[in-house]
Each structure stands twice: as structure tokens, then as C-alpha cells.
């Protein structure tokens, strides 16, 4: 296994313009993470059309979007600690111990401990990615249409673990996404499906239009609804810096949580929020002998922050190696690659070594930048918490319309965006998650064309889908990912019964 790609990658990541995009991404990411109103996925949705229209090369776009993503995992802790409102989904657990610390006048300590833990988590996870990515590249050529199809089956199977408590809504969301991909020219037969004679619909619903509609427009509508709620005042950043002994005492907590976060992140379908919850409860079980967790224990701040960063980084592993998104946000990034005509999949590493290497290398740089931004400069982001909604809401709206219009110079796209936004708003009010829709949309076309190609090659014989060792392995993985959590929960229920 060669790590040459990483050296090439540093060559890409350290180009002045890419350093700048990384810096902008880290700054915006922290800001977006810090603002409870918008999460990383909204931020990426807004930035994507801007990057695309500005003609950024694919590696720069990816570096920018990725740094927003893991930057947000840093920023989310700020509002968790100071407002008791998580800045993004991955920072929910940080409120439990972070906010009590801030109320006890130890806000600086909480911010530094959580910042350093984020750095631990992010950095260790990048090192793991560095060694994992090339391994998958070796088997790329073994992937033919049949293998791709089963890979997509596996990706959809992982959805079952994503929103376990509402499987019907997950499934419906996914089917909605799949249905949207059938609009446009059919890649196999060349037939025009659901275009209603309009050439604007020949290429189907554009990915940017979908993402902006689902995440920005619906978000604006939700924000407008909550507007009356008023603005929360963040707590003052007071207290002293933590001691070296404190930073050393959280080391094993950070290492364990990074491990948990990384594994959870790598598993497609689960993300930073699950990772931080698992890491927090694990640490609580191991360390909480005196009942300090929940009252401002520094390990309770360190664990979720190390885990959510490790998970965000780990989510890139299935994306870069198999072309399967590990989270809603990486699904958006995969869609971004498709805009550049780069087909995600196991061949990505062999065909685009500069892209993969550049992204991985930029994560080393990005985590260092983020550590600097989040320790001495943390006050800049705290002041962002005072940003009133009457600036935020029109701002997001403006960027959405501009983004879509400049990317496609078509008013039709803007109308479709509003339509999807309205649907997204309704679905969110009904408790639907947007991620399965995006996943269905991103993977649907790949799944359909590969199934049809596999069957074309075999002359209609369905056996081709189970023939090669690789397809068998993927089927087994797909079945396992659905059944294992179900078995575990059943065993737990059984164990709990006699006790009760």
C-alpha cells in the first residue's frame, strides 16, 4: 500500500487558493455550526451553487464543502455551552455538561476542553482515513454493474439504522427521492420520462435545485415560524484556561470517544449525533463513579466533541472508498462530485488520486486551522450568536435564489426550487427526515442503471446479481446491517424483562 497519494494530496491542499478555500470553509463551518438556526447541511447546500458557478475545480469545491462540514462539528459546541441550545445535531450531548460549566463561570474552560477534544477526534480520524482509503481502491476494478447494484442495495439497507424509530417515514422519504430521479432522459433506453414535453426537464431535477429547496427554503419557512420566539442571550465567556493536567486527564476519554465516533461515522447511515450520544453514555458508564456527569464534568464535554468530529471525518470513508454516503451531508458532497461529471464509486481513488489525496491532506490542515480559530478567536463566533433573524432569514433566501439562478440561468429551476422547498417544509412538519430523500436521489439513478445494465449483460438472468464473490459479500453485509441491530434490541428487551 502506498501513501504517495497523500504527498500529492498535500501538493494540492497547500496550493494558495486551496488553503484559502479551506480557511474560508473552516470559518464558515464554525459559524454555521455555532448558529442553531442552520446546520452544516444547509451551509453546504448554500455554498455548493456558489462554488460551482464560480468555476472552482472539483478538488477545491470538495475542500471547501468538507471543511464546512467538520468545521461545523467544532462550532456546534459554542452554542451548546453558552446557550444550552445545540448548534447542530452532533452537539446535543455537549449541552449536558457544557452548559452547567458555563453557568458555574467556567465557560472558557469548557470551550477550550471541548475545542481540544474536537481536535483530537478530528486529527486521529484523519490519520485513520489516510491508511484506509487506498485499501478500497485496490478492489475497484472488480465492481461491474451487478456489484454496483448490490452496493446500492447495501447503502439503502443502512438507512434502516438511520432513523430506526420511524422506519415508515424513512422508507417513504427514500421512495420520494428515488421517484424524483426518474424524471428526465433514461440513461438506458434514451426515453424521456415525466418531462411533459418541456426541454427544461430533460436532464431531470438538478441536484443543486433539490438540495437548496429541501434544506434552505424549507429551513427559511421553519425559521419564519419560530421568529416570534425571540433571541436568546449567550452566557459570558468567563473563567480561566484549563491546566495541562486537565488536558492530559481527558486523553483516554478522547481516544475512546474518537474510536467510537469513527466507527459510527464509517457505518453508512449513522452520523455525528448518534456517535456523540454513544460516546457520552459510554464515558458516563466507565467514569461516573461520583455522579459528576451532567453537572459539569470535563469528560462529559470532551467525549461528545471528540466523537462528533471523528464521526464527521469517518463519514468520508464510505464516500471516498465506495461512493456510498455515510451521512446526509456526505450525500450532498457526492452529489457535488456528480455535478463535475465525477462518478463516485470504488474507482474514485484510482481515477482521481489528486482529488482524494487533496481532500484528505486538507483535513490535516483544516483541523489545525480550526483549533486556532476555536481557541483564541472563539469570541468572534460568540458574537455571531447575536445575529438577529431579520438578517439571517432574508440572507439565506437571497443566497438560495441567487445560487440556483446563477448555476442554471433558468427561472424554471427557481420555481422548481420553491416547489421542492414547500414540499420539504410540509414533510419536515410531518416529522420526515430530509436525509433519506437526498440519499434516494443521489443513489437512485446509479442503482437503476446498474441493475438494468447487469440484466442486459446477463440477458435477463437474475442470477448475475448473486454470482461473483463480491456480490455475495455485499448481500451478506446488507442483510447483517438490517438484522444485527434488530437482534441486539431483542436481546436487550429479553434481558430487561426478568429484571423487571
Amino acid at each position, binding site marked *: 500500500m502506498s501513501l504517495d497519494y497523500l504527498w500529492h494530496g498535500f501538493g494540492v491542499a497547500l496550493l494558495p487558493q486551496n488553503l484559502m478555500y479551506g480557511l474560508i470553509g473552516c470559518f464558515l463551518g464554525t459559524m454555521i455550526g455555532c448558529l442553531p438556526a442552520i446546520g452544516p447541511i444547509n451551509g453546504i447546500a448554500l455554498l455548493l451553487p456558489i462554488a460551482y458557478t464560480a468555476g472552482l475545480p472539483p478538488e477545491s469545491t470538495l475542500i471547501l464543502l468538507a471543511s464546512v462540514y467538520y468545521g461545523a462539528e467544532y462550532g456546534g459546541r459554542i452554542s451548546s455551552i453558552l446557550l444550552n441550545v445545540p448548534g447542530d445535531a452532533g452537539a446535543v450531548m455537549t449541552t449536558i455538561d457544557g452548559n452547567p460549566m458555563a453557568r458555574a463561570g467556567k465557560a472558557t474552560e469548557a470551550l477550550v476542553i471541548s475545542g481540544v477534544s474536537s481536535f483530537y477526534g478530528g486529527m486521529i480520524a484523519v490519520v485513520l482515513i489516510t491508511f484506509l482509503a487506498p485499501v478500497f481502491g485496490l478492489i475497484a476494478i472488480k465492481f*461491474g454493474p451487478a456489484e454496483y447494484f448490490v452496493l446500492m442495495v447495501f447503502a439503502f439497507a443502512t438507512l434502516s439504522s438511520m432513523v430506526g424509530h420511524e422506519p415508515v417515514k424513512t422508507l417513504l422519504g427514500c421512495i420520494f427521492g428515488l421517484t424524483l430521479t426518474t424524471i428526465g432522459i433514461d*440513461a*438506458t433506453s434514451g426515453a424521456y420520462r415525466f418531462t411533459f414535453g418541456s426541454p427544461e426537464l430533460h436532464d431531470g431535477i438538478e441536484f443543486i435545485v433539490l438540495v437548496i429547496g429541501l434544506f434552505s427554503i424549507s429551513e427559511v419557512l421553519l425559521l419564519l415560524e419560530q421568529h416570534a420566539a425571540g433571541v436568546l442571550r449567550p452566557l459570558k465567556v468567563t473563567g480561566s484556561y484549563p491546566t495541562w493536567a486537565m488536558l492530559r486527564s481527558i486523553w483516554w476519554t478522547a481516544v475512546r470517544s474518537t474510536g467510537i465516533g469513527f466507527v459510527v461515522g464509517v457505518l453508512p447511515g449513522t452520523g455525528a449525533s448518534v456517535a456523540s450520544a454513544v460516546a457520552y453514555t459510554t464515558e458516563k458508564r466507565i467514569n461516573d463513579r461520583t455522579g459528576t456527569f451532567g453537572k459539569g464534568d470535563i469528560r462529559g464535554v470532551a467525549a461528545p466533541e471528540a466523537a462528533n468530529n471523528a464521526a464527521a471525518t469517518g463519514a468520508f470513508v464510505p464516500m471516498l472508498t465506495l461512493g456510498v454516503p455515510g451521512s446526509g451531508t456526505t450525500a450532498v458532497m457526492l452529489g457535488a462530485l456528480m455535478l463535475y461529471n465525477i462518478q463516485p464509486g470504488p474507482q474514485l481513488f484510482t481515477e482521481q488520486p489528486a482529488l482524494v489525496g487533496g481532500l484528505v491532506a486538507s483535513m490535516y490542515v483544516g483541523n489545525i486551522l480550526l483549533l486556532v480559530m476555536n481557541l483564541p478567536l472563539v469570541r468572534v463566533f460568540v458574537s455571531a450568536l447575536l445575529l438577529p433573524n431579520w438578517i439571517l432569514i432574508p440572507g439565506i433566501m437571497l443566497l438560495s435564489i441567487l445560487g440556483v439562478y446563477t448555476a442554471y440561468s433558468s427561472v424554471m429551476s427557481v420555481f422548481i426550487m420553491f416547489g421542492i422547498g414547500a414540499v420539504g417544509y410540509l414533510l419536515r412538519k410531518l416529522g420526515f427526515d430530509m436525509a433519506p430523500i437526498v440519499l434516494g436521489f443521489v443513489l437512485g439513478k446509479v442503482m437503476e442503471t446498474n441493475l438494468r445494465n447487469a440484466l442486459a*449483460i446477463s440477458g435477463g438472468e437474475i442470477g448475475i446479481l448473486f454470482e461473483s464473490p463480491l456480490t455475495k459479500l455485499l448481500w451478506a453485509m446488507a442483510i447483517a446491517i438490517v438484522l444485527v441491530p434488530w437482534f441486539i434490541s431483542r436481546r436487550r428487551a429479553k434481558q430487561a424483562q426478568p429484571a423487571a
Partner: protein
Amino acid sequence: MKLKFVGGVAAFVILGSTAFAQPEKTECLAGAKPGGGFDATCRLLSNSLQATKITASPMAVTYMEGGVGAVAYNHVVGTRPADPGLVVAASSGSALLLAQKKFGSYDETAVRWVGALGADYGVIAVAADSPVKTLKELIVEYGKNPAGFAIGGGGAVGSQDWMKAALIAKAGGADPKKMRYAALEGGGAVTTALQGGHIKIAAGDASEMVKLAEAGKLRILAVMSEKRLPGYLANVPTAKEEGLDIVWPIWRGVYVGPKVSDADYNWWVETLRKLQATSEFKKEQEARGLYPYESLGADYDKQVREDVKRFKTLATEAGL
């Protein structure tokens, strides 16, 4: 009709005595997103015009995505039919879509075809370790066992790659409708699938295959050109040499709107003629994997119409 003819003569006389009218602003519209074939065509034109300083101001390249050029076609005919500075990128793929009536209500006579800027040629390839060494052999083997040869191409059923494959199948005496054809996502996916053994025959274009053939990763059996192509491909026979009478150029060219005056149309034709003689143009052409291809003005217009007719016949013959 008579008036138009007189006008034409008058224009010709005036043009004959003075320089051709040069439009104030020039723009090349690519009917797809940046990075594709239409973009490459526009860049070829824009870069070489700038390098040779044939036009005074640089040519802008704009994009209008949709329906592989259908949106741009409708836009030019419907909204900017008389813009003298606007040329639009097209390819033999556009002629195919016109033949299949996939450009909306307009046909190939709705615009004025200016000229081709170069061409790529169809090729048939097999894996490097394939026992089949020549196209003749392939056709015989295919005829014996069509089910044993899955064919991959970078386009849907009815696309140019599919038609190339259908012609091979027909030559082997097999029914193109029963062909095991996989419509893969572009040329890169086709060559990867060939190397992975998922398909046995690849139908594609010379430029996307030549580097891999040179590296020994696949074998090009024949090139669908009139004469052998230069460079590495000089060792590869044409389909004609192998006894299969197919020439398949994938030309790239430009058209202007239907109401553009003869003077402006002629200015574009002459500009392309001048441009194609320059070394700057040849360099840009080669960099984009295109081979020289001469077809300008009335010749080109005639050729597009003939291509559309040919594609219509091929589709009917193949049973679409």
C-alpha cells in the same frame, strides 16, 4: 423567393468587394454544463480565435444546460434567431437527437450550420487478454455466440455507441435487438468495465481509448475512419480494411440562428476556414483529442442533413 435571391446576389457582390462583416460581440453557447464536449468545442474556438487574434475582442463562452443541447437549440431558434455574434456548439450526437425528434418541435433545418471544428472516430475494442485479435475474428465469433459477448457503450439504446455495436452485431448475422448491450456512464466507465471483464466488447471513441491501448490495458481492433489515424493508431486497421464498410466520425461543430444574415453567416464560415489553417488551431484541436475534419458552409449544412437521414435509416434498420 426571387427577392431573396436578388438579396443574396447583392450581398455577395458587396461582400466580394469589401471585408466580411464582423459581429461586434462574439459568444459561443455550450448547451451543457462546463466540462463536457460542447464546452470543449466552444473553448477550442474561443482559445484559438484569441491566440490567432482573428477577432478583435475575446469570445465569451456561455452555458445553457438541458437535454444534451435541446434547451440551447430551442433558445436560439425561439429567442435569439438573428443574433449575428452567437454560435452554438453541436456534434454528430445533435444530429442523432434531431433524427430521433428529441429537440422539440424543430428539425435540422431550423438553424444555419456553419462548420465542423474537428472529429473523433468510432472504435471497437476488446480487453488486452482477449483471444480475439482482429475485427474479422470478432465478427465471426460474435455470430457464433452473441450471448457470450456483452457489449458496453457510453450511451443509451439508440445512441451512437449503441449503433456502432448494432452494426457489429448485424455484420455477424445476429439480431441487434437481442444484443446484450450495457449503457454505461460515459467512456471512462466503458473502459473500466472492459478491464474488469464485465463486458467483452467496448464501443467508443478513439480519443478516450487510445491512451489505455498504448498502456496495454485494452486492444483497439479497428478505427471507423476513412484512412488510418496518426500516432499510435497508425498501427490499427480501419474497419474498411477489415472488410466492414463503416465510417463513423463524431464531428464537432457550430451553428448560428436561422435569421442570421448571409453576410454574417459567410463571415463565420470564412473565419473558421482561416482559423483551421493556423498552427494555433491545430494545437488546440489535438489537445482536445480531435482529428482534422474539413466541412464548412454549404458542405457542412448538406452533411448534417445527410447525417440526420442516415441516423433515421440506421434506427429503422436496427429495429428501434
